[in-house]
């Protein structure tokens, strides 16, 4: 017996043992402590139940927002410098500036160049002398495009991590999408609210006096915002000044605290140095007025400023219950999303369907492989038995690969395994048919086997390459479970070649190496 046969056989045995070791944690739970491998096969959401959310990051909106912020800042600077502007408005992504006094044009141009590095003048501003137009620098736009998804991903990940779900997945997909997977979550409402929150915290003064106007006819610098009423519903409306005095980006921490008897939970926040100073100034200048704390456009509370607050701490009393307060503190701590998110896709699978899918998948697998194994045995007898052995090894390797590489097994993945059973024996059929043909021509068993493997190889190679290619295309095209299927298909081709072609060859080489075979059972 040649040494190469022994070496190859030993290799297959070693691989099989290693795979069995990898698979024990999947079937024996928990695996004994001394076991070298503890990671069971990961099941997709369609098998274990849970929620899959696909978000689109509205990058364009983020760019528009940046232009808006630059415009507000520009207005503020112009006010500071006492340059009168007849109008400042945004058209698309361009800020159009009409000066009251055309002589100040040069001064404004210098100011923008000096202080607004992000803005570039639009040369073809269709305006008569004195008017100006600015837009965001292309590099800045590109930077926003590159960063927004990544930032959103980080923030969502932080929010989800504190949400309390086992093994969540938050991943970028393409250039502007984010996938969130929450195993075991059947009602994703709370998760969706938490993820989708832009968490823009603003402090504004509640309008008073004659300029305030009425709810139906607010004054020129006043806006109507919804406010939380007694029961926490958004029913009331309140008049606040348009001007934002401070935003939530100066927050360094937020935590939940038990409020007074009728208050429920309150959210405590801590400000950074700049925030502390600003907040001190605001509260000193407005003692006796109501300060509206606005979260995502809703007035959470509007306490009266009784004394200047200079300690850099504050409270939001929103009549929250504990979960609400916790989620709000979480969102405030982790910062605001750089761009709005749009929920594109939502898929929820209940645990009973997942269980049912596993059961049905396994049943199809058992029945399908039993049929194939039986057919091969009846039709090709000895050769069929060898092919069947290779088939079992193939399944072992294929499933083992899922455990080894941490691939996620989905229902289409199981279907892919079942399909692999049907396709894997193809190579054996081609070889065995060819051996039969050679035997009919009067060749010896050994020569027929030799020729069978050699001649069948071309068809085996070509047919597997083509299926592999379509698997790759499928992987490129699909997402989620469909990708799982593509992975299974491609892996299955590799393991089929390893077992069905090279593995069975070891057996034949072993048999022919010992005695002269007069007949071969195929």
């Amino acid at each position, binding site marked *: 017996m040649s040494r190469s046969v022994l070496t190859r056989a030993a290799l297959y045995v070693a691989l099989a043992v290693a795979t069995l070791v990898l698979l024990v944690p999947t079937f024996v739970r928990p695996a004994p402590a001394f076991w070298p491998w503890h990671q069971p096969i990961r099941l997709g959401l369609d098998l274990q139940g849970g929620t899959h959310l696909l978000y689109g990051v509205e990058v364009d909106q983020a760019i528009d927002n940046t232009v808006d912020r630059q415009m507000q800042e520009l207005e503020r600077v112009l006010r500071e410098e006492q340059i009168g502007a007849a109008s400042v408005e945004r058209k698309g992504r361009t800020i159009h500036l009409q000066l009251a006094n055309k002589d100040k044009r040069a001064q404004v141009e210098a100011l923008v160049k000096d202080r607004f590095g992000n803005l570039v003048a639009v040369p073809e501003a269709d305006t008569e002398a004195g008017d100006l137009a600015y837009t965001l620098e292309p590099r800045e736009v590109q930077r926003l495009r590159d960063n927004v998804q990544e930032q959103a991903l980080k923030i969502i990940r932080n929010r989800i991590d504190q949400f309390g779900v086992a093994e969540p997945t938050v991943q970028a997909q393409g250039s502007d999408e984010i996938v969130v997977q929450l195993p075991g979550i059947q009602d994703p409402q709370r998760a969706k609210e938490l993820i989708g929150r832009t968490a823009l915290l603003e402090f504004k003064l509640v309008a008073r006096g004659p300029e305030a106007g009425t709810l139906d006819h607010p004054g020129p610098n006043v806006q109507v915002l919804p406010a939380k009423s007694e029961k926490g519903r958004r029913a009331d409306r309140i008049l606040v000044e348009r001007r934002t005095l401070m935003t939530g980006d100066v927050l360094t921490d937020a935590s939940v605290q038990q409020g007074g008897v009728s208050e429920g939970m309150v959210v405590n926040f801590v400000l950074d140095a700049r925030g502390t100073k600003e907040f001190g100034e605001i509260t000193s200048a407005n003692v006796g007025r109501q300060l509206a704390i606005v979260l995502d456009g809703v007035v959470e509370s509007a306490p009266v400023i009784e004394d200047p607050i200079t300690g850099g701490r504050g409270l939001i009393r929103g009549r929250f219950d504990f979960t609400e307060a916790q989620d709000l503190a979480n969102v405030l701590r982790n910062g605001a999303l750089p761009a709005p998110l749009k929920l594109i896709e939502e898929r929820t699978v209940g645990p009973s*369907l997942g269980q049912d899918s596993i059961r049905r*998948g396994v049943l199809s697998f058992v029945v399908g492989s039993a049929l194939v194994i039986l057919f091969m045995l009846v039709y090709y007898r*000895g050769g069929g038995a060898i092919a069947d052995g290779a088939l079992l090894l193939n399944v072992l390797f294929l499933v083992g690969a899922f455990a080894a590489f941490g691939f996620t097994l989905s229902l289409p993945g199981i279907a892919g395994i079942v*399909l692999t059973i*049907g396709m894997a024996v193809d190579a054996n059929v081609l070889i065995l*048919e060819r051996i039969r043909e050679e035997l009919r021509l009067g060749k010896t068993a050994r020569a027929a086997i030799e020729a069978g493997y050699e001649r069948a190889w071309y068809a085996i190679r070509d047919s597997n390459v083509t299926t592999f290619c*379509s698997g790759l295309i*499928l992987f490129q095209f699909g997402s989620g479970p*469909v990708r799982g*299927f593509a992975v299974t298909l491609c892996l299955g081709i590799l393991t089929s070649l390893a077992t069905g072609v090279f593995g069975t060859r070891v057996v034949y080489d072993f048999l022919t190496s010992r005695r002269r075979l007069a007949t071969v059972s195929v």
Partner: protein
Amino acid sequence: MKGDSSPMATSRPPRGAETPAPVQHRFFELIPPGTRIDFVGLRFKMLLLSWTMIAVGLAWAYVGGINWGIDFVGGTMVHLKFAAPTPIGDVRAALLKPELGEALVQEVGRAGNEFQIRVRGAEKGGSSSVSDAIKADLREKFGEGTYDVLRVETVGPKVGKDLGRSATLAVLAATLVMGVYIALRFELRFGVGAAIALVHDVLMTIGALAMARMEFDLTTVAALLTVVGYSVHDTVIVSDRIRENMKKMRRESLATIMNISINETLSRTLITSGTAILVTAALFVLGGPVIHSFAFALLIGFIVGTYSSIYVASPVVLYLEGRQARR
């Protein structure tokens, strides 16, 4: 190792014989060797038959429409199971609300208690308002706890459009890759034949999906791509043999060689496809509602794919040969 316990029967060579005595081989055979079915002669009839079937299928899809899953058109799907069998009419009646528009209710399985409700098109309200409305209406009619929500899916409208385009592209790309590969491995005309056979298989499968009112969703596209990849198997087997025989039988016409080759490889074509069809049938019957249309598309695609490697791919090669000869 004992000879009789091994899959190979071993025996000593006959005494004094240098070459082994001719052994009478008796195999279990599906197609006995020497079978001569005139496949090539039938090609025009088959051509007519298959393209008529495709035309009927596509016309059906055009008139009756394809049962698009929400992956493609956007909308909401709720899959639920009642504790007790419930008439489908009752479920429909519970959902006759203007805000749900046209809710499609489809029974799943045979137990009479499992249904899929689909509301197509973009949602106007919040992201889950439609699924919430469906759940609320059902609760109102049947009471809390009488049913179990197995699955809820909501897909935005934009995804669907993008998906339709990328799905078409993927299938076309796969077909092209297969054609080019076969053309490189064999000859250009074999590649053309294979590609046309694949287009034939995909169109036939789409027609069958439309006729059976099977849902056409993401996994269905996965099935179509698999069909494209796997249907080439048979074409490769036959083409491989044609090439081999062309070297051996230089005197014969291509039509004769083709006929011989198809007959010689017939049993392996049928068996390799047969095992794949066998396991797909197991998936179709036992795999459950989630992969029902997926398994259906595979099943039809594999059956058609086997047929097309004989009746579509080879005649195309023959036709191209004829054109070459006339020039």
